[in-house]
C-alpha cells in the first residue's frame, strides 16, 4: 500500500481560540517504506498520525491509500495497526486477550488467536506475561504488549506513536531490531513517530522533520544529516548538535567565502559562492566533529567550561565571544576545564544559512 498526504490541515477549537495542530503538510510513503516523523513536543506528529488512522477528521486536505481517498472511511475499516502514545491496553482483558483482540473481531477461533498471541509475545520477549492483566505490567512491558498487538493484526500499514519511549536503553535497541525485522518481513509501510532523532536516524528509510505544525524537510537520514535545507533541521539532526555562528559576508569569490564572525575573519570553502553577496547576514553551521582545538593556532577563541564523556569520545563546551561551541575530542586528549583555547573550523565542512530566513544558501564540498 502507498500513503499520500496532501495539504493536510487540522485545527482544534478550544475556549481560547483555534489551535492549528497541523498546517498544510504533504508527503507520500511507498510500499514497504519505513517513514519516521521526528520533531519537538507539540509539533503535530500525533495529530497527523491520528488523521491517517481516521481517528481525527482533517479540517482540509486529503489522505489517499493506493490512490483511493480515505475521507469518510471510518477508522475500523482502514485496516491499520496503531500503537498509541498512551499504550491503550484494555484493563479488563488478560495480556493474551489484548494482543489477540484484532483477531477476535475477525472471528478467528480462540485456539488460533492465542497461538498467534504467543508468537508475537515471543518476539517482544513477554511470553511469561500472557496470563496477566495490563495493570500488573510495568510501563515498558505494556508497550511491548501493545506492540505485539500490532504484530498479530497483519494490517495494511503500521502506525507507531513513540512505541519505545518507556524502555531502557538496551531493550530499546533490541526491540528496535525486532520492529525492523517485522517491517522487513511483511513489507508494509510503517509510520514511526519519535522525538529521538537518533532512533529516527538508525531505523528509517526516510524521515520527515516536523516543526510547529509543518514539515521542515523530508529525506533519507544521510540527506538530512549532510544536506539540511534549513537551520532547524541542521540543529535537530545530529547529536551533539551543530554549532552556529552569526556573521557577515566579507568577501565571496570562486570557491571561497570569508565571513566575519565577531570581528574575526573565517575563510570557508563552499560549492557555490555566488549564492551569497558581500554584506549578507549569514549563520555558519559546523558540526562538533568539524571544529578543532589548539593551544596556539585558530580563528576563534574561548574558554573550556565543560568536558563530558559521550560514548567513545569526549565533548568539550567552549564559551567565547562568538557564543557556545561544542567540540568532540578523542578520549585521550589533554585539555582541561578552564583552559583558554583557540578554535579552528574545518573550512570545507560548513553550512551557510541566511540569518533572516534560516534557509541554507550554500555549503562546503566535504559536509
Amino acid at each position, binding site marked *: 500500500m502507498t500513503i499520500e498526504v496532501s495539504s493536510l490541515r487540522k485545527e482544534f477549537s478550544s475556549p481560547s481560540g483555534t489551535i492549528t495542530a497541523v498546517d498544510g503538510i504533504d508527503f507520500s510513503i511507498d510500499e514497504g517504506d519505513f517513514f519516521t516523523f521526528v520533531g519537538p513536543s507539540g509539533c503535530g506528529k500525533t495529530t497527523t498520525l491520528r488523521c491517517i*488512522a481516521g481517528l481525527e477528521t482533517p479540517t482540509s486536505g486529503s489522505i489517499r491509500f493506493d490512490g483511493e481517498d480515505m475521507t469518510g472511511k*471510518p*477508522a*475500523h475499516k482502514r485496516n491499520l495497526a496503531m500503537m498509541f502514545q498512551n499504550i*491503550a491496553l*484494555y484493563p479488563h482483558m488478560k495480556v493474551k486477550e489484548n494482543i489477540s483482540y484484532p483477531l477476535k473481531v475477525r472471528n478467528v477461533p480462540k485456539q488460533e488467536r492465542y497461538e498467534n498471541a504467543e508468537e508475537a509475545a515471543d518476539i517482544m520477549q513477554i511470553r511469561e506475561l500472557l496470563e496477566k492483566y495490563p495493570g500488573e505490567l510495568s510501563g515498558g512491558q505494556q508497550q511491548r504488549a501493545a506492540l505485539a498487538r500490532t504484530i498479530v493484526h497483519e494490517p495494511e500499514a503500521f502506525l507507531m506513536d513513540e512505541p519505545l519511549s518507556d524502555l531502557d536503553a538496551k531493550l530499546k535497541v533490541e526491540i528496535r531490531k525486532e520492529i525492523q525485522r517485522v517491517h522487513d518481513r511483511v513489507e508494509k509501510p510503517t509510520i514511526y513517530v519519535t522525538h529521538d532523532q537518533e532512533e529516527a536516524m538508525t531505523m528509517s528509510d526516510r524521515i520527515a522533520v516536523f516543526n510547529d505544525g509543518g514539515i521542515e524537510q523530508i529525506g533519507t537520514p544521510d540527506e538530512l544529516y549532510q544536506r539540511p535545507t534549513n537551520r532547524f533541521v541542521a540543529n535537530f539532526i545530529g547529536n551533539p548538535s551543530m554549532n552556529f555562528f552569526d556573521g557577515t559576508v566579507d568577501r565571496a569569490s570562486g570557491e571561497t567565502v570569508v565571513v566575519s564572525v565577531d570581528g574575526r575573519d573565517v575563510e570557508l570553502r563552499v560549492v557555490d559562492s555566488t549564492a551569497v553577496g558581500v554584506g549578507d547576514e549569514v549563520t555558519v553551521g559546523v558540526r562538533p566533529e568539524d571544529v578543532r582545538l589548539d593551544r596556539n593556532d585558530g580563528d576563534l577563541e574561548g574558554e573550556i567550561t565543560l568536558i563530558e564523556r559521550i560514548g567513545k569520545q569526549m565533548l568539550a563546551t567552549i564559551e567565547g565571544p562568538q557564543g557556545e561551541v561544542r567540540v568532540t575530542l578523542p578520549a585521550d586528549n589533554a585539555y582541561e576545564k578552564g583552559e583558554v583555547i583557540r578554535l579552528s573550523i574545518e573550512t570545507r565542512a560548513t553550512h551557510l544559512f541566511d540569518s533572516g530566513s534560516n534557509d541554507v544558501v550554500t555549503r562546503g564540498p566535504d559536509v
Partner: protein
Amino acid sequence: MSTINKHGSRARELRDEAFEFLSKKKVLAALTILPPMLLFTFVNLVPIVGVIGASFFSINAFSNEWQWIGVANFETLLSSDSFYDALSRSVVYAGGSVVIQVVFGTTLALLLNRSFKFVNIARTFAILPYLIPNAVIGFMALWMLNSQWGIVNQLAVQIGLIQGYVSFFGSQESAMLAAILTSSWKDSIFVTVMVLARLQAIPESFYEAAKMSGATAYQRFRDITLPNLKGVFFIVLLLRAVWMFNTFDYIWVLTQGGPRGATTTAPIYAYNVAFGTSRLGIAAAVSTVLFLVLLVAAVLYFRIFEPSEEVRAE
C-alpha cells in the same frame, strides 16, 4: 498596640491549643467515628434488635402487654398461605422492577453518554424526575392512568392500542404491572446516574484502540462498554433489588395492596397485619423473616458473582 498584640497572641494560643487537642489520635477518632456510630445504633441497630425481639412476643397494640410465646408467631406465619403469596408478589414486584429499571436506565445512560448538541440540558431533564417525591409520582400516575379521564387511556384509544378505557390499577391482571411500571419510571434514573458516571469514566482511548483493531460499533459495545459496566451492574442490581423488595410507598399510594390482594407485597402485608389486625408480634415476625430472606439472598449473590473478580477496571 500592646493590648491588641496580647489579645491576638492569646487568641492564637487558644486556637493552637484547641487544634492540638483536636489532633490527638483518640479525640479525632472519637469525634469522627462516634456520631455515625450513635446514629447507626439508634436508627438501625436498636429498631432491628427491637423488632427481632418483638417477634417472639404476643403484643397487644392497645395495652402494650408483651407476652413471651417463643416461636409461635413464626409458626403461624410460615403456615399461612397469604404470607407466602405476599412474599412471592414481592419477588415479582422487585424482580420486574429491577429488570425494567436496569434495561431502561442503562439505555437512557447510553443515549445521554453520546455527544450531541444540548447534551447537558438533556441530561438535566432526564435526571429531574429523581427529585420528585415518590408519593407525588404515585398520585401523578393515578391520574394519568385513571380509567375515566386518564391521558394514557385517551392516547392509547386514539392510537388504537386498546378498544375502550382500561382500569389499570383496578383489574387484578394489570395492577401489578402498572405498579411496577410506575415505580420504575423514577427509579430508573438511579440506574442511569450510576451507569452514566461509569460510562464517562471509560477512556476514549480504549474505543480508539478497538477501532484500530477493526472492531465494529457492536463489537466495541460488547468488548469495551459491557465489561466496564459489570461492576456498576453488580452494585445496582443488589441495591435496586433490596430497595424494591422493601418498597411500601408507591404501592400504598397506588393500590393499597389491591385489588383483592393482587399487589399485596410483603411490606404491605406486614403493614396490614400490624395496623389492620393489630397483631404487632406477627408483624414483627414478618419483618424478621424478610430481613433474613434478604440477608441470605445478598450473601448468595456475593458468593456467586464475586465482585472482586468482576470489578476490574483501570
